[in-house]
C-alpha cells in the first residue's frame, strides 16, 4: 500500500468543520485525508465502509448536500460548509425507511457490507425523483458493487420502490420481465 500512497512522514493536520447528520462537527484531518477517513476515524460512523478507495465499489457512499457520492473521493478540504448524511442519520427519514423495508423484504442482502451504500444511492434517487426528475433507480446503483447476491434481491427491491405509489418507470425490464421468465 505504501507504493500507492506516498505520504509525508508527518502529514499536516488541520481542523475541518462541516455538518454531519444534522450536527455541526469539527474534525482533525490530514492534508491527504478523505471524508471516508474522517468518518471511519471517529468510530461512530461505520456505515461508510472502505471497499476500494478509488470510487468504484460504492461501499462508502454517503449523501453530500443530498447527492450520493463515494466518500473516498471527497477530500477533507472540500468539506467546510457542506452537509454530509450517512444512514446513521437517516434512520427516521421516510425515504430511507422505504428503501430499508424494500431491501429487507426482498432479501436484497447477504453479508450486508455493501448495503448501506446501496441504500444511500437509492435514497438519493428517490429524492431526485420526487423533485420531478426522471430517474431510473437502476442507474442510481450502477456505482455500487455487491458480490454476494447476484443483484436478484436488489432487482426485486428496486422494482418494489419503482411500483405505483412510488410512481416511477424505473427499470423497464424488472418486474414484468421477471414474471414472464
Amino acid at each position, binding site marked *: 500500500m505504501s507504493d500507492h500512497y506516498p505520504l509525508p512522514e508527518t502529514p499536516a493536520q488541520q481542523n475541518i468543520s462541516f455538518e454531519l447528520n444534522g450536527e455541526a462537527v469539527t474534525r482533525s484531518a490530514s492534508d491527504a485525508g478523505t471524508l471516508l477517513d474522517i468518518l471511519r476515524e471517529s468510530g461512530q460512523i461505520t456505515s461508510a465502509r472502505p471497499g476500494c478507495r478509488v470510487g468504484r*465499489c460504492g461501499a462508502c457512499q454517503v449523501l453530500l448536500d443530498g447527492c450520493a457520492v463515494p466518500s473516498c473521493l471527497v477530500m477533507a478540504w472540500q468539506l467546510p460548509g457542506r452537509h454530509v448524511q450517512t444512514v446513521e442519520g437517516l434512520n427516521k427519514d421516510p425515504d430511507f425507511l422505504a428503501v430499508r423495508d424494500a431491501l429487507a423484504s426482498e432479501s436484497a442482502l447477504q453479508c450486508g457490507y455493501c448495503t448501506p451504500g446501496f441504500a444511500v444511492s437509492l435514497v438519493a434517487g428517490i429524492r431526485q425523483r420526487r423533485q420531478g426528475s426522471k430517474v431510473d433507480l437502476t442507474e442510481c446503483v450502477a456505482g455500487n458493487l455487491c458480490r454476494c447476491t447476484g443483484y436478484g434481491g436488489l432487482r426485486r427491491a428496486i422494482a418494489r420502490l419503482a411500483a405505483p405509489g412510488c410512481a416511477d418507470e424505473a427499470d423497464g425490464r424488472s418486474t414484468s420481465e421477471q414474471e414472464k421468465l
Partner: protein
Amino acid sequence: MTSENLQGAVRKLMTLDGNSVRNATSKMDLAPRIEGGLAYATDQRHLPGLLHGAILRSTCAHALITRVDTSRALNMPGVHAVIKADDVPGLNRFGIVIRDQPVFCDDRVRYEGDAIAAVAADTPEQARAALDAIEVDYQPLPVVSDASLAEQQTAIHSSHEEHGGSNLLVRETLECGDIDDALSRCTVIAEHHYQTPRQMHVFMETEGGVAIPDGKGGVLFRVGCQSGHRDVEQLADILGVAREKVAVESMATGGAFGGKDELTVQPAAGLLALKTGRPVMIHLDRFESCRAGIKRHPVSVKMTTGCDAAGRLLAHKVEAVLDTGAYASLGPAVLENYLDHATAPLYRIEAYRVSGRLVYTNNGVCGAFRGFGGNQATFAVESQLDELARGLGIEPATLRRINLRSPGDAGSRNQTVRWTAPPADVLAAAVASPLWSRGDTDNGRWLTGTGMAMGAQGNGLGDGLPDSGGGRISLSPAGRICVEFGFTDYGQNIVESITRSVCNGVGCREADVEVVLGSSRGPDSGPTSASRSTVLVHGVLASILPRWMDAVRGHAARVSGQPEKGLEFGPGGIFSDGRQVLSYRELAESTNPGGMTANASQDFPVAPDSEHPVGRYLQLQIATVARVEVDRITGRVRVTDLHHVTAAGPVIYPPGYLGQIEGAAVMGQGMTLTEDMTAHEGRYQADNLDQYLIPTFHDAPLQRVDVLDNTPEDDPYPVRGVGELGIEAVAPAITAAIEAATGVRVRRLPVDPGDLLVAMAAQEQNL
C-alpha cells in the same frame, strides 16, 4: 437444443421467486445490516489503546533477501513496534494443508506480496510511513511464471526437503477401467484444451480485524475468518503459546467465499499485539488485498473424451495443471476436488484416467474459492459433451440423457452416492425451460443464443478427510433458546437457516431463538466451507433437539406441577391445553445458568464403503440454461437470462436458497466473461476494482430458480448445503449459448471479445 419428451419426468418443481422470498423473509437480522449498526471485524475502532498495524510486502516476485533493516522505522513518530522473521517466537510458517508459508520471509520471497515485516503505530498513516522506512535488499531470482513449465524450472521451495527439489507439489491420478482399450473403440473423440482464470474473491470487506492481548500472554482474535478452531491451532503455534491462550471470535464478516479460509492478517496482528500489549487492528486496503490475497486456481487442462455410435461415453482422459502459486494453502484439496469433478460424476463412463498436477509458481497464492476446483473441471467436462454431441449429430441434451447416472448407480469413484433427485429429472426440467422457445435470433448487430450445462456438487470435505462438527443448545438467562455453532456468519444466511430449523423442530417463534456463532470457545463445528454447514446443523439439531426438549419438558413439569405428558413447546413458552404455563424466561429463571444444556457432535455423512471413503457421498445437481447476446461489432457478450434447475433437497429458508444460487451464478458469470487476475513475470496486472471488473447490477442477468425436491423418502440426510451449487454449471452454459449464437466454441476463460470476433469472422468465411 429442442424441447424433448418430458412426460412424467418432473414430479415436484417449485419456482423460487420474489413471492417465495417475500413470504419467507426473516426481518430479524436484516435491519441492523441496512442501518449500519452491525459491527464487522474491521469496525472495531472504539477499543481502548487500539494501535494500527501494517504489513511490509515484497516488491519482488522471487528473490533472496540479503538485508532487512528496521532501525529507522522504529524511531518514526507514533511507532510502537516493528517485527520481522526473527521476532516470531513460535513457528514462522502457516498453511492449512502444508505449513509452507512464512509469517515473515526470512531468506527469500516467493511472490509479490509475501510479508517481510510489520509495524504497529498510533495511526494508519504512521504505520504506513514506517513501512516506507524499512530497508530491504533483494537479490532477484528467475521468476517461475508459467505453470506448464514450472516443473522444469528451479524449485522455489528447494530449501524444503518435503518438496523434493521440484516445483511439483502434488501429482494425483484417478483411474477406472482400461482407458486405452476404451479409446480404441470410440466412434467420436473430442480432444481439446481448456483454460480457466485466476479469479479473485472480491469480498467487499477486505481482509482485516483486531488482535486483543489479554495481558496474560494470550490473544483474542476478532478477524474475518472461516474456521476459528483451526485458526487457533495455527496461531498458537506461531505465537509460541498454548492453544488455550488463543481465542477466535469471528465477527460478522463482509464476504469470504473461501478467501478468508486461510490465515490472512491474524499472524502479524497477533504478534504485534503480544509485542505491544495493546489491541492491534490490521485492515488490508484493496490494493494490498489484490496483491497478497488468495485467488482461485487457474487450470489448464487437456481432455480427450470419446463415445460410441450410440452416444455412450466410453473413454475420458484428463491431464490438468493447477497453478497454486507460491504456497500450498488448500491447493492439494482443491486438486482432489478438481479431479473428482473431472471424472464427470453425473455420467457413466466406461473408463477414465484423470490426472492432475499442482505446481508452485511465483504467481501469488491460490487456495479455496467457492466451487473449489469443481466448477473449473465442470466447464471442461460439459464442453466436451457438447463437442461429442456435435460430432454425432445429436442434441446435447440427448447425449447427456443417454449417459446420466440413475439413482441406484455407484458414483464415478465407485462409491455409494445419495442423489437428491434422479439426474435425468434435472435435465428434463432444464430442457422444459421457456428460454429455449425464444429461439436464437440475429438482428444484425446482436446475435442471441441459448445453451445448457449440468453440474454435480458434493457436500463435505471429501476423500476421507476428518470431517465432523458439533453444536450446543441451552436456555439463556434471558429466556431464549440459544443455539451455538462454530461456523462463521459471512452472509450465507446461516443464522436464518438455523433459526428456521429450530422453530420448526421446537415449535417456538423466531424471537425465542438466539443463534451464537463463531467462537472458538464454543462448540467446534469445523470449517465454514465445502457446503457442509447446513448438513451438519441439521444433523446436530436432529440429534440434540428431542433429548433437550425431553429434559426441558421434565423440568417444566416439576416447576409447574403440570403432568409432563400434556406439556408442549410453543411461541414464547411451554403450553398445556393451549394455555401457556411457563414462559421460556420463567423457565430459565427456575434453573441454574447453563443448567439446561445439550451438546452433540456429528461426523459428516460419508459413503459407507470402506475405511477411507473416496469421492462425495451427498451429491446435489444443477442444470443451468443461459441466454446470451453477442455484439457482432465488439464481440462483447451479455448474459440476459440464467435459468437454474436445482436438486438440493428441501428448501429450509427460501430467500437464502435463492440468494445463494443467484449470487454464485453471477460470480460464475464474472469468471466466464471478465474476471482474471493475470500475472506477468509474477506481477499481477490489476491492483484494484477499476481494473479487475466484477459484474455490476447492469451486468447481472434475470434469473429463475426451479427447485426439484423429490429427494427419496429413505434419504437420511435430505437437507443439503447450496452455497456452491450455483456456480457449478454457469460457465459451460454461457459458452454453449455463445456457440448457439455465433457458431464459435470458447475454451479459454474469460471470453476475450477480440478473440471471439476473430473466430466469428473466420467462421463466417468458412460458411
